[in-house]
């Protein structure tokens, strides 16, 4: 059995760690490329979103490399995503691949369920091995996110644009290759220090833009055309709430432990309450909540959503009517999106935010005098 999983950001690194520790044959699909997207688009039913197309493309490319078991998020009561594994399996069969798509119930919040799937796929590996594999994988995931947050901060302040991205790439590789906790901790320390040593403009107070919306397009840089790097080039500091470690924690792993953690999501939901009272699937509720919560805290928000995403369309309809005001740029991502068009929109948005900030400052000065 050759197992594979579709890409979502750096998620393949912790998964690779887990599967390698369990001596499973894990195929990492080729990195998301134009070919991945074209394949996915070609074989998708009409009107589906970019997460479906990209994950399908990954599965086809993994199947070409001989993978026969794909793990895909699924379940009920979320958005269309819950239905995807089933449809994707049908598409793979139509193409002649004898692949099985195993659903991981995102909605059920069952840590045990995930463990059982892994135990089954690993050919009944001992629990001790599975749990230690999980722990190490999660550790890597958390470390990756810590580094990413630091990169987001440095990108906007660095004197030579692109320095942080270079260090980040090296850091990701080093974390990927780390074989035990000692090497991993050393690598983390080393790259955090390196990031810190990048020459930065200490005086500058960059614009702060929050990125929110549907988790897949937020977390998978290929689908949003590397929006964070582009914003970094424009000297904007990016903040976000959705990180891979958090998404998986809340959705897949520690559902049972959730109530013992400080739950950021609850705060977001509470903020959304006056405008949207219930979960509408996907991240629609969170999008409305984040807009309310971050107005006044950030300079602006970028709302990312896949084209035709149902929950985000509801959210966008509601977001424009909230009492709390903050500039929001909604970008619908799909295979038709081109980089120059997006950069133009980002530049215009950043210019608008800059003018707003200047105006606020001059208003403040005139108030004082």
């Amino acid at each position, binding site marked *: 059995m050759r197992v594979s999983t579709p890409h979502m950001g750096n998620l393949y690194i912790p998964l690779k760690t887990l599967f390698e520790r369990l001596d499973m044959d894990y195929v990492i699909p080729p990195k998301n490329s134009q070919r991945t997207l074209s394949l996915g688009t070609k074989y998708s*039913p*009409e009107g589906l979103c970019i997460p479906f197309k990209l994950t399908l493309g990954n599965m086809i490319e993994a199947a070409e490399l001989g993978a026969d078991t794909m793990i895909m998020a699924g379940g009920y009561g979320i958005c269309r995503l*819950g*239905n995807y594994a089933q449809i994707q399996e049908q598409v793979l069969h139509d193409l002649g691949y004898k692949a099985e798509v195993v659903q991981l119930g995102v909605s059920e919040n069952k840590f045990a369920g995930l463990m059982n799937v892994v135990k089954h796929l690993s050919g009944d590996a001992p629990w001790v091995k599975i749990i230690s594999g999980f722990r190490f994988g999660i550790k890597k995931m958390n470390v990756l996110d810590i580094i990413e947050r630091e990169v987001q901060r440095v990108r906007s302040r660095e004197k030579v644009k692109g320095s942080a991205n270079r260090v980040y790439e090296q850091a990701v590789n080093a974390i990927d290759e780390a074989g035990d906790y000692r090497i991993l901790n050393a690598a983390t320390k080393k790259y955090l220090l390196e990031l810190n040593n990048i020459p930065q403009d200490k005086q500058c107070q960059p614009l702060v833009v929050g990125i929110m919306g549907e988790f897949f397009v937020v977390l998978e840089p290929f689908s949003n055309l590397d929006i964070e790097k582009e914003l970094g080039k424009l000297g904007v500091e990016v903040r976000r709430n959705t990180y891979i470690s958090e998404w998986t924690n809340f959705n897949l792993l520690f559902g049972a432990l959730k109530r013992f953690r400080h739950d950021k999501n609850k705060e977001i939901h509470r903020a959304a309450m006056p405008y949207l*009272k219930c979960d509408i699937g996907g991240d629609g509720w969170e999008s409305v909540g984040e807009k309310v919560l971050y107005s006044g805290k950030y300079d602006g928000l970028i709302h990312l959503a896949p084209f035709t995403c149902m929950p985000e369309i*509801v959210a966008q309809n509601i977001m424009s009517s909230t009492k709390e005001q903050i500039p929001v740029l909604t970008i619908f991502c799909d295979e038709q999106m081109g980089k120059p068009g997006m950069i133009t929109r980002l530049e215009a948005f950043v210019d608008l935010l800059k003018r707003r900030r200047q105006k606020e400052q001059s208003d403040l000065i005139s108030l004082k005098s």
Partner: protein
Amino acid sequence: MVRIGIPRALAFYQYYPVWRTFFEKLGAVVVSSAPTTKQMLADGSKRVIADTCLPGKVFMGHVLSLVGNCDYVFIPVIRSVKPKVYNCAKFLGLADMTRAVIPECPPILEIDFDINKRKEKIYEDIYRMAAKLSVDRARVKEAVTASIKVNNEYRRLMADRGLTPVQAIDVMFGKSVEGKDIRVHSNPVASIALIGHNYLLYDEHVNHRILQRLQGAGCRVSTPEMVPEEILQSVVNKLLGRSYWTSEEDVVGAGGYYLDGRIDGVIGVTAFGCGPDSLMIDTVRRHASNLGNAPFMNLTLEEHTAEAGIITRLEAFIDMIKRRKRRTSCA
């Protein structure tokens, strides 16, 4: 008397008799919006972002037409009517979305209906909604019992007598005495099944009178409502294992049922921008091509759809079926 507005869109075709009976038993007057017009759709489209699905735009148009004509608008959030089978995001956010895009909307009577909750909890939600109309619990309970009875009668009218929801509503509320069974046709040239959401199949403006056009061309038309729900559900279970969407039976169930060779052709009617449709119609299409029994065509409706385009496609479809029939009878 308090007037309650019910928009003639989305779940209207499925539950109008239930809602009307319920509110009338509570002593309210029910005002339903008129059938969709071009103006309504245009007004509705203006309020929402362009990516919103066609039925969502139609719904907003109907709510707008009710502004000023009623004291409350009833917009239920129908989360789930079958265990662990959920509705799409637009249904779940419907009340909040209406409030956001139509600020002048009269107060909204809303209820989050979720069959997965305990029975007492569901009743509690109904009581809470009815409290706005200041009626006591005993009367609400009576109204619920009466509505359930009406619901069964409504389903029976459609399944046994072959009435469309619109005809059945007319018969039930005394507008016409006798509905005509749309399945009865003297010497039909072809029998065709229409599958899709009932708010697409029976909204004559949105679908450009597709049902009447088919009948006019001499076709016998069947729709999902004419098959008992249990049978549709069993077809879904056979094809997919279990339903994922609330409307799965109307599309996948009816599609699978009619493609079984009992009919000359199946037409899927879907809405542009509908998330569930894109997945469900794909399942039907795949099933149709695997079976090879009957031709299948998918018509996607949107607000710009020109009538001529729809007519051409229907004509071509019927011609193709006629040719097929001639060929099989020759051979």
